[in-house]
């Protein structure tokens, strides 16, 4: 304990709340409050309504939700596949090769998402790979952006994995492929799970690259929120944003449930 006097402690906590609540808690609460209102010109919003949600789960908003869900699930699956494959392959390499591979797969984090979007748009609008205008170009861009995070968390988990397990398995006559499938992957499962949740959340909220290349018939939620607010429908936009946050949270919760099951198994 750093502050010993009672008064000092209360003062510290008060200062903490004074910073924390307006900065972090209020924004999220404000969005939720706005999603249930029709007007906000005073201290509190007015005109309580659920009509915004009617708009948010109907028509193009509903389509945007399914678009986002499909994109996020597909991008997470691909990212997890390539990210873990690369992480496992890197772990078997010598030090220099491993470092190079890790750096390569982390590179998309450093490159601005907008540039990733531009690059994917430029590359896949021309032969031999014509993906522009299809949902695949969105999935592809999201996969590029989130693979780095899958790679990073699986890499970290592999480093923490005690080699004694795979050695015990090998001494019992298990071939490397069998060891990978029956020992290493099950032991990595909790981390794979966490990585999947992270990838899903990131893909759900991805806006920068998506803005560069989404086709008109494949508009994910963040773009939907932007177009709503851009034409001035702030309250409908808030309702869609709450749907986005809620869906992300639900999936994260489900994933962490699965994770505790996996690590206790």
């Amino acid at each position: 304990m750093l502050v010993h006097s009672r008064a000092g402690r209360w003062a510290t906590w008060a200062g903490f709340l004074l910073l924390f609540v307006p900065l972090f808690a209020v924004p999220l609460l404000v969005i939720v409050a706005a999603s249930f209102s029709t007007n906000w010109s005073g201290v509190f919003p007015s005109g309580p309504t659920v009509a915004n949600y009617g708009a948010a789960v109907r028509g193009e908003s509903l389509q945007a939700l399914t678009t986002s869900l499909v994109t996020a699930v597909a991008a997470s699956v691909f990212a997890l596949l390539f990210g873990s494959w690369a992480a496992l392959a890197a772990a078997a390499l010598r030090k220099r090769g491993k470092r190079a591979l890790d750096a390569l797969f982390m590179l998309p984090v450093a490159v601005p998402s907008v540039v990733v979007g531009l690059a994917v748009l430029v590359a896949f609008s021309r032969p031999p790979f014509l993906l522009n205008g299809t949902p695949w170009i969105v999935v592809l861009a999201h996969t590029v952006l989130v693979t780095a995070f899958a790679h990073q968390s699986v890499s970290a988990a592999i480093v923490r994995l005690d080699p004694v397990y795979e050695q015990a398995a090998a001494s019992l006559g298990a071939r490397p492929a069998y060891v990978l499938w029956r020992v290493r992957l099950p032991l990595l499962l909790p981390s794979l799970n966490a990585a999947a949740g992270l990838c899903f959340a990131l893909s759900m909220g991805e806006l920068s690259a998506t803005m560069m290349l989404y086709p008109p018939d494949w508009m994910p939620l963040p773009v939907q929120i932007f177009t709503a607010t851009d034409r001035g429908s702030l309250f409908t936009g808030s309702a869609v944003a709450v749907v986005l946050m809620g869906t992300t949270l639900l999936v994260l919760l489900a994933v962490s449930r699965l994770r505790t099951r996996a690590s206790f198994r």
Partner: protein
Amino acid sequence: MNSGIRFDAVSVAYGGNVVLDSLDLTVEPGEVMALLGPSGSGKTTALRAVAGFVRPVSGRVFLGGRDVTELPPYRRGIGMVVQQYALFPHLKVAENVAFGLKAQKAVPRAEIPGRVAEALDMTGMAAYAGRYPRELSGGQQQRVAIARALAIRPSVLLLDEPLSALDAQLRSGMLAELARLHRELPDVSMLYVTHDQVEALTLADRIAVMDKARLQDCGTPQELYRRPRNEFTASFVGNANLLPVEVRTGGGVRFGEAVLKVDTGDAAAGSAATLCVRPHLVGLGEGPNALRGTIREVQWRGSTHRLYVEVDGRPVKADVRELRETPVLGAPVTLHFASQDAVLLGAGVGSGG
């Protein structure tokens, strides 16, 4: 069954650091060989060379007459038990034990449950087949680890400090258990790595003493204890007084002022040598090979007294039956030992081998 392990001039080095220096050693079929040595002596490296986890820079490793130096671990057919148990946490006890059988696909699927039950029976863990490793105590986990290694019916069992993670009481129980397993499986060769001389003396048919990456000595426990070949063995296997002596012409040795009658073998007269006498074979009072000195320290150890006596400026340890009266520090005292209880270690044989 043709089993057994042979090291043929096996050397292992990590980045220029020699951690195992030209090891020659044969473990006979059905024999328990203990690799005994301090940490960093190369004993674990030797075991890992048999398992296939380290690759020798030179030399060959043979299992049952077959050169396995180039074989990956999973094609060597060895059972291994390590200090940390290494049970797969995501598999139940029975699945852990069945792991090797399923991985090798050498046994028909229908026979696997029987083999698992047999291995669990052998280690007394049949009642725990449905549990997860984390639900077991350390001793139980180690029994499962042994059952898992035995289930594949290996001709060679490698044990890497298997009891080090257990407390003292469990350890002696497990030691008896391992001895029983050895009797029940007379064909299985065991290589048992340990730094604990009690484990080695209790369990092993022969002990290989390792130090500084080299094999120092090898023999039955009795041989090593009674006739150690060098100072390292003498002090690492049991306790020892190592007295610097000079070989006299016409037999016997000189230790300071005292002349001691011991078998000098073919040691050259006038050469320097080391005389090894076990402290519990040193008696108090007059007798053959008397040593006169002063008591410097006394430790009461319950059933015995350990006396540190200074003889000619050299400390001599004596473990004697509990004395009724504790000797006074500084008092003059006479020690003796029987000629046949002393071993003359050759000059220059000492450290470094």
